[in-house]
Structure formats: C-alpha cells, structure tokens
C-alpha cells in the first residue's frame, strides 16, 4: 500500500481494518521503486506506427511505446480514539513507522482512544469504524516515527506491505472516505495465479482502448489519459471500477516497461512461484517481449477506481476469474507516409489521409471532451507530402534573395 500523502510527516497516520492480529513477520516496509515498476509495466500506453509507402504494399513498421505517468496512488488514512474496550494487540516499529494493532469493542471507545493518543480524527469516524468492529476486524494503525524516518534518509513515506490469509478478498475503502476532500483515486494491482480479478459488487468496465489518435497526443499523453479517465468515469455515472490492464506478467506487446523479474515479483508478494522463470527477456522487436513457455504463474490485473462516499456505499469486494484474455489501455499514433507516391494506391492513400485526420480528431474530442477547435489547432496544418503530384510551382533561385 502506497499513498501519495501530502503534508507534514508528523501528521501522517493511517488506520486500516485487517482480518487478524498481524505478527511482526507479516508486516514489511517495501520499496517505492517496486510499485513504480508495476505501475510502469501495467500503465496505459501509446504505440506509434509509421505508414509505409502506399505504392509498395509489403508492410514494414517500426514501433515505439511509452507508458503513461501513474495516476494518483492509493489513499491516506484517518486517525484516532481511546478508552474502554480498546486493546493493543501488538506494537511494532517497522522502518519509519510505529505500528499498533488494535482490537476494539465499540466504535466510540476506539474513537476516544485514538483522539486521546494524539490522532486527529475527522467527524463521522466513529460511524465509519462501527461496521468493521462489528465484523470483528482488527485495526492496523501506523504513524511516522520521526527519528527512524530521519535515519532512513528517505524524503517520502515508503509503501507498507502486509501479508495475511483470509477468504475475504476485499478492500476497506469506506474508512478512507471520512477524511478525504472529494473523490479519491486508487490503483489496484492484483497479481494472481490464474486470471483476471474483478469486483463482485461494482461493475468492472474496460477502459476505452485501441483508438487512433492525433500525433500531438504523444506530447500530452498524461493530460490525455487524465481527461479520458475523467470522461469515462462520468459516463459510467461514477459507479464503476475500470480495468486498465490484464496480462500474464511474463510478456507484453507493446511493453510500457520491461516485465518484472522473479526477484521483483517475489518482493511484491508473489510467493507461490516455484520454478523461477527466465528473467532475461528476449526481444524480437524493440518494445515487445514475446510470450515464453512456460508462462510464469503470475497474472496482473490493474484496476483504477475513483470513489466517493455517495457512489461507493460499500467496500470493494473482489473475485479472481479464470479469464486470461489480454487487455491493455493502448492508443495508436499513425505517422503518415509523406514522401512521393504517384501510383493509384498512392493517390487513394493521400485522399484517405484527410478523412483519417478528421476521424482522429473526432475520436480525441469524444474521449476527452476537448474542444474540436483546440484539437485542430494543436494538430496544426495538414502535413503535405514532400512531393505531391501537384508539385507546387517551382521556386526560383532569386525568390528569397532580397527578402
């Protein structure tokens, strides 16, 4: 779990319901780079294709891809409450965090205990804590140990990992809504043995994918992704979870980043892989890592959800399905052929190029709700082939001489 907490380190605290009292071995402070790796590997991506000479049918294409910048990660927690009915089940310092595992009998007791122990609790915390207490969950409470934080030398808070067994495949999101200002963005990377993960109590919807977009999106991919996500989110009445990536972790096509190595997967918690798979990924073409045999037993699902109290009344519940169909958020840039092409096919090609440009602009407008005028302005003038059948009047040598 990694959160993009902004504020003073000393003010940071998080409370997460957990199904059991976690021992010290079940908790770890992880490496931010690992999460960035998974994020980069699974991020929506751009692919560029270069049109070939329409007069020479055999296709040769080169391709590059790049990952989208990560969306806002995970969530921050609230804090606080004490007195009757609260038991400190365990207490550890792990890395820069002071961690308590609390058991509670009553939500008001827990709220009081936390407040008295210096946690600032937002209004309504007690009401949000109650369902978890009644379901006999424990509370994992962490705050930053400033001395340890200075020793660690990190300028940011590292992700917290915990490992436990439970038939309850869910994420308690309701608690985090108490102190959030507006909707929160969360990315969930689920790595499983079998196949795709989906929510069982909210619709999981595939992110729009596979569209041809104007070339200039390359320089504004982050803006594009954010705008498109926002539009899709509104279109689905803010009530769905988006699927952004679903793929075996052994390969990718196109790759937004190289697949994760054995070691990286293990550190992320993939404990079940017995036979290490070859971490040297053969590349046939730049940007592609082909599937290898046997494929590693690690399938990643990337879910993106933007949630608030009104549209997500219940925590997220998941199930692992047997679906191994590949899915990725992938957007295509097609570079036109701009050299001479005088054959019939060439003429047809240039004609189609015009309508293709319009279509790309329309797609972009539809996905992002950016204004058509802005898009056409950004797209610039229609590039013309370097020498076209209607060759522009030949420049004379003296034309520019006295300017």
């Amino acid at each position: 779990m990694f959160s993009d907490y902004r504020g003073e380190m000393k003010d940071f605290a998080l409370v997460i319901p957990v199904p059991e009292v976690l021992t010290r071995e079940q908790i770890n402070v992880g490496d931010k780079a690992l999460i960035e790796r998974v994020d980069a590997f699974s991020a929506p991506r751009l692919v560029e294709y270069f049109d070939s000479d329409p007069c020479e049918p055999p296709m040769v294409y080169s391709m590059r891809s790049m990952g989208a910048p990560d969306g806002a990660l995970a969530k921050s927690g609230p804090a606080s409450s004490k007195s009757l009915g609260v038991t400190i089940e365990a207490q550890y310092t792990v890395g820069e965090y002071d961690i308590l595992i609390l058991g509670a009998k009553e939500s008001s007791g827990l709220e009081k205990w936390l407040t008295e122990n210096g946690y600032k609790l937002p209004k309504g915390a007690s009401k949000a804590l109650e369902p978890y207490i009644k379901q006999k969950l424990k509370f994992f409470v962490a705050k930053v140990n400033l001395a340890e934080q200075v020793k660690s030398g990190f300028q940011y808070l590292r992700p917290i990992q915990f490992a436990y067994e439970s038939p309850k495949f869910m994420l308690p999101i309701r608690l985090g809504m108490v102190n959030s200002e507006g909707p929160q963005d969360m990315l969930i990377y689920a790595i499983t043995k079998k196949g795709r993960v989906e929510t069982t109590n909210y619709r999981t919807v595939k992110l729009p994918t596979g569209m041809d977009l104007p070339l200039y999106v390359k320089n504004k991919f982050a803006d594009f992704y954010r705008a498109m996500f926002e539009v899709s989110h509104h279109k689905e009445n803010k009530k769905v979870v988006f699927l952004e990536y679903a793929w075996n972790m052994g390969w990718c096509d196109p790759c937004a980043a190289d697949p994760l190595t054995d070691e990286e997967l293990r550190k992320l918690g993939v404990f079940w892989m017995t036979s290490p798979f070859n971490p040297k990924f053969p590349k046939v073409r730049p940007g592609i890592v082909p599937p290898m045999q046997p494929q590693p037993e690690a399938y990643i699902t990337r879910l993106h959800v933007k949630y608030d109290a009104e549209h997500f009344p219940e925590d997220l519940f998941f199930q692992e399905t047997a679906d191994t169909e590949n899915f990725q958020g992938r957007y295509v840039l097609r570079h036109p052929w701009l050299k001479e092409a005088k054959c019939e096919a060439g003429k047809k090609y240039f004609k189609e190029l015009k309508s293709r440009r319009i279509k790309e602009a329309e797609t972009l407008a539809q996905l992002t709700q950016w204004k058509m005028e802005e898009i056409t302005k950004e797209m610039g003038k229609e590039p013309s082939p370097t020498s076209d059948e209607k060759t522009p009047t030949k420049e004379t040598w003296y034309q520019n001489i006295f300017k």
Partner: protein
Amino acid sequence: MDPRFYQIAFLASFLGLGIVFRDFSVGFSQILVVLVSALAVQVFAIFKYRLAWASLRSAIISSLGLLMLIRTQSFKLLALASALAILSKFVFRFRGKHFFNPTNFSLAILLLVSPEVWISPAQWGEEFLIGAWIAMLGILVTHKSLRNDVSYSFLGFYLMFLWLRVSYLGQPHSVFFHQLNSGSLLLFSFFMISDPKSTPDHRYGRILFSGLVAVVAYWIKFKLYNPNALVLALFFLSPLTPLIDKLFPSERFEWPTSNRREIIHATSSNFHFKFPSVSNFWVLRILRRQS
C-alpha cells in the same frame, strides 16, 4: 398462453441488451454452442421418453439462463454445462419429478468442480438492473399464471436478512440498496428458485424451502465469503424437495401445454396455481379418447 413464452422473451431481451450495452463477453458462438447442446439433449429426451415438443421451450429457458450467468473461456465446458443442465432433469428424479433446477444444477456443479468457470455478479450495473427488476415484477403481476410465490417468499426472507445485517453493522442504508444491484440475485429469484417443476408442490413447502435457501445463501455469502452463494445454496438444498413434498403433499405442477402422459399424472386439479381451464380441457379430451 404458455407462460414460458414470457420467460423466453424476458431472458432473450435482457441477454441481448446485456451483450450490446454491457459487453457480456457472450458472442454468437457461445450462444450457438449452448443452444445446440441443450436442444440436442432435449430432442434426444423427447424421443426417448416420448415427451411433448413444447418441452423444447424449457430447454431454451435453461440455455438463456445459463448464457447470462456462466462465464468461461472454454467452449467444451459451455457445451458440457448446457448438456448437464438438461440431463439433470432426467437423471435426478424422484417419483417422476426432477428436483434440481437445470441451470442451477450445471452452474453449481461446474463452479464446484472446474476452476475454469466463474459468474460475474456485478456485470449488469445498477441502471440496467433497476429496469430489469421493474420489468420482471411487472410481468409477474400482470401474468399471475407464472407461479411466483417462491420468488416473493425467497426475496422476503433474503432481503430481510440483508436489511438486518446492514442495520446491525450500522452501515448506511444505501448499502442495502446497493446489494440489490446484482444480476445473479434477480435471475436467481425469478428464474431458478421459482422453477415450478423442481420446487416443492405445496405452497407451505415452497415457503419453507425458500426460507431454508435464504438462510444457507446468507451463511455462504457472509461467513464463507463466496460470491456464488445463491447458486450453491439452492444446489445443496434441492435434494430436500422430495422430502418436503412428502411433508406437504400437493398436486404436481404442469406447464399448460405439456404432453398427454404428464397431464394424466396431474389429473383432476383443484390446485389454483395451475391453469385449470386449459389442463382440464386436455384431461377431458384425453379421458374421452381413452374411454
């Protein structure tokens, strides 16, 4: 008119809308595999047991129900699921009555046995389901011929449990309404547990049965955290049907267009969930012929 036509119309349009607007990942090939497999087994049974051709309607209902719920990447499993559904009607019988709902039987068996099969309960989405609940209740109210007391009593019990749980946990009541947002719950209530052929014959028996299913489903969902609770609960409890029928004996249900042999089983009916005018007419005619 045979109420099965309404069911087919409802299921087919619901499935069609789902495929078009909700990306159910059901394509033409899946539909073909399931229908062909189910109809083939049913046709075989028609010849073997000299059944009425109208029984094909039931096979279509079973196939459509299956298509809406079952998800798998394997066409073999789809064909198997469909065949199993229909076969279960002829294999698991007690005193001439099958006690598993065909769709429920094959779904549960495959969910329990094969890791390749799953159900996506949330794929319908809220807006879609509100429409479907209304349409379904509308059909039930206007066409009393559909035996619907099981649906009502099951929903009564199950929703009461959900409501009590939400109140006990102190969750906002929107959670309760959110929990209705399940395609499985809707299909289950109106097309599986309500199956007039496999549920107990007597109304008291059906109420008892639906209460038991609601309790077990609640337990599986909230104690074992299995999202397929409804399907599994009905599967495990269906074998109790013959026992409940013994406890509360009553007339056997028949579809209004069933074939002769089945009608003769039914005999003079004073049972008002059936279609007295139609079946009496048939019985009369058959009796006359025999005499």
